[in-house]
């Protein structure tokens, strides 16, 4: 069997940077992660709504 080509250095660098970013995200404090989740919800909501799925973006800033 022919060996797979090695990744080009630019691609390897991009993948490593992506991995590094994901690792950094996993190290954020929990409240900061929750804020990221809400940002993801805002991005996903119009797409899901267009597909007929009713979702609600969290209102996490309500005063306790």
């Amino acid at each position, binding site marked *: 069997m022919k060996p797979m080509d090695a990744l080009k250095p630019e691609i390897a660098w991009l993948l490593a940077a992506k991995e590094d970013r994901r690792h950094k995200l996993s190290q954020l404090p929990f409240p900061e*992660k929750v804020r990221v*989740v809400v940002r993801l919800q805002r991005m996903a909501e119009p797409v899901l709504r267009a597909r007929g799925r009713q979702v609600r973006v969290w209102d996490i800033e309500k005063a306790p």
Partner: protein
Amino acid sequence: MEATLKILNDLERAGVMHRYAIGGAMGATFYVEPVLTFDLDVFVVLPQTSGGLLTLAPLYEALRARGYCEEKECVNIEGVPVQFLPAYNALLEEALAEARETLYDATPTRVLRAEHLLAIALQTGRAKDRERVRLLREQASLDQKYLAAILARHGLAL
């Protein structure tokens, strides 16, 4: 979110539920990169009813009395749709008993341990659970000995 957790703590103090802990995607997010979800899964140990049934009815009633209404399978508590899941098997009971105490800003709360989240995802076994297992193995600091003991106790394998 902090306001939501305060209400959960109030309900626990009032004895409406014996113990709660965050699980599901938000529980996993505590240990790994943020994951998209639209509900907050909260596992609960409920007081035993006279008939021995596990029912969420008294919890929902207490929430309605505080002005929080059901929306499909969730209850909107201070802007966050919360889905309550009773501990329906030995693994969940153990996960709740050993959940980790933490603070969300200034509010105390509990999150299931990463090893239990992984075991629960293995047990549930849907595509998104398999993805959660992968993420937890990749990014969470797992106590391998503790995880192996959980898996052995509950007849699960990686």
